[in-house]
């Protein structure tokens, strides 16, 4: 089954199929050398999922090491300022290491240990996934190699140093534009060269099957917690959900549990960089088209010859010319609204949130905040809006200072 169906599915939670397809998206477009390995990851993951001991161990670490559940916080001053919807932040920036990324790295490193792998590789853009990977590698005493584009190394120096402190080797990637896409190419090259002892912890809901489904399943705890917390706080489900999207792991983490709740409106915010019409953006769904890269079919930024074009965003974590394959399917099915937000809009929202709530958001969720600022004033006071505060902004203060013309 490789064709997208026009009719509305019975459930938005039934995919992927057994071969990892979300409609025409997803799949396993990797070199033959990696196929047996990817099949073994899938098998090990299926066994782990069915094993209560695996989930129990993960739950222990989620609770006592990461600090879950993260709070659902009513952002009163921002809500008052915007005069509209009642705004809640899902505080995943309060997780250990400061972002949602560790929900996934913890799950995957437990899987890697189960598989008897000794060496961990990862790609990183903003460095949040790299830090989250280096952290769990330190925790379990495993060798860690993180591929990071040299452009990103320059703009995310604090995270580079954190990874090194945690004992990881950070390999600068100079090919291409030196950003997340190139780091992922290099990680795949490493994996194909070290198939026996190495496990690749992919940081987002992209890559070959089973990664998009597996990473989603490790992140969907975000939305499951929100459901319970919102029932406790308001006695009903939220009316809308907002999350930023690069590869899309925090977004699918928040959305997944609500996909079949039709009354919940869902917004995913893509990075429009300097503006969609400038060509300097990272909005794969708003301005790209379906293609095949990094193991899956999904929307990509590309030229008319199928060459991948450079993404641009002030936020290193959104600076990727693709998107998770499940998001491509959710986009085509119309279940999720994908909306672009520019660098400038994100910067403004970054400052607004910092001053009104005393929370310095990462530049990634600042994109989601900017959309909240746009829609909240148009919504009634009893509209319950949840935004995923998926990362804290300490790593971004230098980038923001530069963008605002402040020299530190």
């Amino acid at each position, binding site marked *: 089954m490789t064709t997208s169906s026009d009719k509305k599915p019975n459930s938005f939670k039934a995919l992927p199929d057994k071969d990892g397809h979300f409609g025409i998206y997803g799949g396993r*477009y990797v*070199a033959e050398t990696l*196929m047996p390995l990817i099949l073994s990851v899938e098998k090990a993951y299926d066994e782990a999922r069915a094993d209560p001991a695996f989930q129990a161990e993960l739950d222990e670490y989620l609770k006592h090491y990461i600090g879950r559940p993260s709070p659902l916080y009513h952002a009163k001053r921002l809500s008052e300022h915007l005069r509209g919807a009642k705004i809640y932040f899902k505080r995943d920036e309060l997780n250990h290491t400061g972002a949602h990324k560790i929900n996934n790295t913890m799950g995957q490193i437990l899987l890697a240990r189960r598989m008897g792998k000794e060496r961990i590789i990862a790609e990183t853009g903003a460095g949040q996934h790299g830090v989250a990977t280096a952290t769990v590698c330190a925790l379990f005493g495993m060798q860690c190699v993180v591929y990071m584009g040299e452009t990103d190394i320059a703009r995310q120096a604090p995270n580079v140093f954190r990874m090194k402190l945690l004992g990881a080797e950070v390999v600068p990637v100079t090919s291409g534009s030196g950003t997340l896409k190139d780091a992922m190419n290099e990680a*795949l090259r490493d994996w194909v060269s070290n198939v*026996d002892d190495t496990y690749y912890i992919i940081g987002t809901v992209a890559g070959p099957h089973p990664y998009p489904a597996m990473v989603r399943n490790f992140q969907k705890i975000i939305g499951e917690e929100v459901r319970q917390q919102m029932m406790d706080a308001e006695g009903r489900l939220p009316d809308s959900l907002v999350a930023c999207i690069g590869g899309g792991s925090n977004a699918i983490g928040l959305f997944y549990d609500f996909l079949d709740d039709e009354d919940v409106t869902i917004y995913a915010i893509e990075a429009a960089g300097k503006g969609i019409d400038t060509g300097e953006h990272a909005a794969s769904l708003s301005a790209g088209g379906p293609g*095949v*890269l990094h193991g899956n079919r999904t929307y*990509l930024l590309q030229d008319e010859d*199928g060459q991948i074009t450079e993404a641009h965003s002030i936020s290193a974590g959104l600076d990727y010319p693709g998107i998770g394959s499940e998001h491509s399917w959710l986009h085509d099915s119309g279940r999720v609204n994908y909306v672009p937000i520019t660098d400038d809009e994100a910067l403004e929202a970054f400052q607004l949130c910092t001053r009104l709530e005393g929370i310095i958001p990462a530049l990634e969720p600042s994109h989601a905040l900017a959309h909240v600022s746009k829609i909240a004033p148009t919504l009634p006071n009893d509209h319950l809006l949840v935004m995923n505060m998926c990362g804290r902004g300490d790593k971004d203060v230098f980038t923001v200072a530069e963008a605002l013309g402040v020299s530190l």
Partner: protein
Amino acid sequence: MSRREGRLKARFENLAAEGRAGLVTFITAGDPNRDISSAIIKDLPDAGADIIELGMPFTDPMADGPAIQASSLRALEAGQNMNVTLEMVRSFRENDDDTPIVLMGYYNPIYIYGVDRFTEDAANAGVDGLIIVDVPPEEDAELRDPANKAGIDFVRLTTPTSDEKRLPALMGGASGFIYYVSIAGITGTKSAATTSVADAVARIRKFSDLPIAVGFGIKTPEQAAEIARVADAAVVGSAIVQVIADNAEKLGDSQDSPDLLDSVLGFVSELAQGVRTARS
């Protein structure tokens, strides 16, 4: 119209009759530019290439090492695209209707060109086979079926990680020849031990009667000769591409490139000599 089925089959039959292995030479189409690349291709058969493997450049060649990555970027910067690549094949066919041409690359440029349109245009240009690195058997029906329908062989890859459980499925849809990737890794890096290659070839033979070509890590005429003793063809790519790179640096703005051509073809002749004398 240069469409003709069976060039690969005929070439391997001739090689078998001669009692020797073949030399498959890889270069990236359009590297360092269209004119020089066309001139190289034109002369490859005379230099001793039995089969021409032509890379379709891609921005993100994730299974390739530094040499072929750089060659892809040189070609793209010089303006190479799929239309030009097929045009180069068409021109080559005006003078050579026998040497098989196999296009190698990644799926996205084909997917965007349109699979059916691509397989038709490629067959009409005179392409004989396809090696698409990131389309494993689990996904390849969408490309393999249209290719076969157009008369193009779909070359399946096997690797050191393809175990006996997987091999039968790999052979199932294969045509043209089997490409054994002799190392677990990217192009142009490690080299495999000849004994391990011989074992792998024997393993593959149990499941397929197709000719077996071996590639990855073959850099010298001596290594090519060693492979030629145990397989039906030796594939050399990165080492040839590196000769282009070394000479392209000296090229500057000049479009005239006798040194580059001589160096590349000279190296190919040495490789061919190694392959042709391997079993004597």
